[in-house]
């Protein structure tokens, strides 16, 4: 399995510049500074790199959309506000190899013409803020940051800005508002950040992993990078696996591996813990639709499902899900989908910014109904009501948080409706044990 980002992650002292450089660090930067900025963008475009934050938008395309008016500064902002439940890949990357991010930041800043770049990191990662600041200090002392980097005439400063603990600040425009010192409310788009972003200047906001991936792209050239992976899912992707598996952790995959292999092979998750069976899985972080085992391992057409953007979303939301941010949450046969959905609904109710009405009111409403069903006070009509509420939130909000709150509920009802009904019909028993026992366990015939 190819490893581009985490190759040296376990090396002793890789956190420090000396060891990082001994292992080939900052060579890409030296190479990049000899290239023209537009050629770097072109290289990223050729590589087919897609945003690793969740939406999967092609990075090179995003960079080329950046408006470049005269006499206006441009900014690169790194979105390290990784708050999605189940996703912790960026934390691993920043904690163990901070210089990879710093190097990627400098290269990207050079390509975009940003002289002041920001890393907006979630406040809960307080110790990582120190790690990154230390790495920036080291880079500065060695001439990789500051004025006239390596004699190229390019100046760049990187600032680390810790957030204050709001999930919504991971949405790019809310992040920019927060970075400007305002309340972290998402902005109404258009205008997009590429035209009017930070302090009304053109801005590119990229995920930590996306920026880090620029380093191997420059090192091995975009065309080589594009050869890894399959189809439009090029390169490697970090997956943070958690839940009922034997080996939770951050894994780097090259997107050609099947979901079944990923869960059961000893190299990765190592199978379901305690010899249980697989019931369901959220393949891309809490906001993407949950999939039952039968649809997770095989698509609706009966083909093997692979860990890449296209295959995971095969079948749309009816029978598929999304790659998302790579937060792979596995549920075994003992887990209750109703309780699980309630937990997520609680999270989204708590994290809604309260700006637009469908999300502000709808998330709280869904949580209350789910709480009723979960605690045995639900009615059959509540399930249809939930479905109706989520359909009225989805797509009608300012930012994707409304969608993120609606999708898990929709998918849970779509695939596990009988479990909701069982909770309503057996209110007392549902308080003692969970439904679902092996009902969705693999391997199960596909329900048509």
């Amino acid at each position, binding site marked *: 399995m190819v490893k581009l980002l985490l190759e040296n992650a376990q090396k002793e002292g890789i956190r420090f510049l000396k060891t990082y450089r001994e292992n080939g660090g900052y060579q890409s930067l030296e190479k990049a500074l000899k290239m023209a900025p537009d050629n770097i963008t072109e290289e990223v475009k050729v590589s087919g790199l897609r945003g690793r934050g969740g939406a999967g938008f092609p990075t090179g395309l995003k960079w080329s959309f950046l408006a470049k008016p005269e006499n206006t500064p441009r900014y690169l902002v790194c979105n390290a506000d990784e708050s999605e439940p189940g996703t912790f890949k960026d934390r691993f990357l920043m904690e163990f190899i901070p210089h990879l991010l710093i190097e990627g930041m400098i290269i990207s800043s050079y390509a975009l013409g940003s002289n002041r770049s920001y890393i907006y990191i979630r406040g809960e990662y307080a110790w990582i803020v120190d790690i990154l600041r230390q790495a920036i200090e080291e880079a500065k002392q060695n001439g990789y940051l500051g004025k006239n980097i390596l004699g190229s005439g390019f100046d760049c400063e990187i600032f680390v800005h810790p957030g204050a603990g709001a999930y919504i600040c991971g949405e790019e425009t809310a992040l920019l508002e927060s970075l400007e010192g305002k309340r972290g409310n998402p902005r*109404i788009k258009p205008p997009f950040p590429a035209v009017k972003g930070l302090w009304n200047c053109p801005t590119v906001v990229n995920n930590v992993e996306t920026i880090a991936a620029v380093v191997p792209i420059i090192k091995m050239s975009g065309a080589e990078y594009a050869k890894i992976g399959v189809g439009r899912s090029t390169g490697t992707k970090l997956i943070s696996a958690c839940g009922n598996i034997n080996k939770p952790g951050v894994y780097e995959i090259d997107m050609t591996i099947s979901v079944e292999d990923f869960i059961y092979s000893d190299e990765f998750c190592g199978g379901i813990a305690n010899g249980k069976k697989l019931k369901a899985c959220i393949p891309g972080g809490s906001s993407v639709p949950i999939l039952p085992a039968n649809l997770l391992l095989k698509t609706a057409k009966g083909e093997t499902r692979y860990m890449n953007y296209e295959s995971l979303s095969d079948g749309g939301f009816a029978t598929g899900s999304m790659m998302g941010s790579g937060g792979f949450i596995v549920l075994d046969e003992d887990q209750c989908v109703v309780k699980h959905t309630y937990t997520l609904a609680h999270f989204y109710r708590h994290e*809604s910014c*309260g*700006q*637009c*009405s469908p999300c*502000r009111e709808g998330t709280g409403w869904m949580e209350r109904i789910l709480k009723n069903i979960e605690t045995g006070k639900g009615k059959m009509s509540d399930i249809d009501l939930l479905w109706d*509420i989520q359909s*009225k939130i989805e797509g*009608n909000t300012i930012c994707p948080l409304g969608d993120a709150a609606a999708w898990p509920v929709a998918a849970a009802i779509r695939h596990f409706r009988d479990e909701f009904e069982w909770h309503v019909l057996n209110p007392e028993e549902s308080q003692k044990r969970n439904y679902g026992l092996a009902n969705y366990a693999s391997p199960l015939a596909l329900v048509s």
Partner: protein
Amino acid sequence: MSEDLFKVTIDNITIDVPPGTTILQAARKIGGDVTPPAMCYYSKLKDSGGKCRTCLVEVSKGSEKDPRPMPKLVASCRTTVMDGMEVKNITSPKAMEARKGVVEFLLINHPLDCPICDQAGECDLQDLSYGHGNEGSRFEFQKRVFEKHDLGPYIQLHMTRCILCYRCVFVADQLTEKRQHGILDRGERAEIATYISKSLEHDFIGNVIDVCPVGALTDKTFRFKNRVWFTKPVDAHRDCDKCAGLVRLWLRGDEVFRVTVRRDEWGEVINTPEGKPAWICNECRFEKKKESDWIIEGPTHINRHSVIAQGHYEGLKMPNEFLPEVIGKKPRLFLNIHDVSEVNRPGIDLSLIEGPATSDDFENPKND
């Protein structure tokens, strides 16, 4: 047609508007039912809009150059038109369904205390729920409740009724020198507040009451004094050194119950002759409560669909100019009781009968 104008079609009605116009503004130019309702958008306040989602419309054709439809419903108040854009508002079932959902969302935490609310009768949310809401609510939980707060000596904030349109925040931001209040907390617990119960003191802060689409911000000099539909609105002005002094007085008899800004047909403050919004100062609003303080210009035109118009038959006249030509005779329907009766005896002049006419007067005519 000038080349500078964009052609936009809203519900099959085409109109030419200058570039930079939003869909909502274009629809307001057309007027009538095709205008989406707006709870948070206020054209006189910069950056307002986009939050309440009641003005969602479907864009079925992006523009002449790029005819693809937009994938999601868009907030018409913040989306600018493109040349050749085709918009569906009341002709789009998707948009109407979404709007119904938004009304339901807005109402789940809104107390239905209209009978004791000072805003009743001129409330945007009442109009919206009447136009687009369901007859009942499916929300079976406790509503969110807040304590009432006094924002200074004249304004009371009743957060329970607030729909978080942010209009008052924009007023405080844009009309006053420094920001005095904003939003605390987030999600459904978000509330309008001053930072630790400070009072709002600024000459123009009273305007937050007028921009509030619901009864969350009320005038303490008017609270519970009268229902708006019992008071008679008249336009008046006075010489004020702080503001333009163009106001609307709400009278009952000779007593001035309330002073507000003058509103246009969209419920927004009118412009002064100089073209600036005619916001009024606190002195005009709260302290000039005598009729002698004002020069009254005349009765305000109130839309006859408004409950405030009940009892004020402004502009009503008998259409006797054309009906006789159509039906060939004077219509009986509009018979004036003081005219000569044609029904019973043409010869009987009712105006000569003392008191109410009875059947005796017709059967035993005294003056036949």
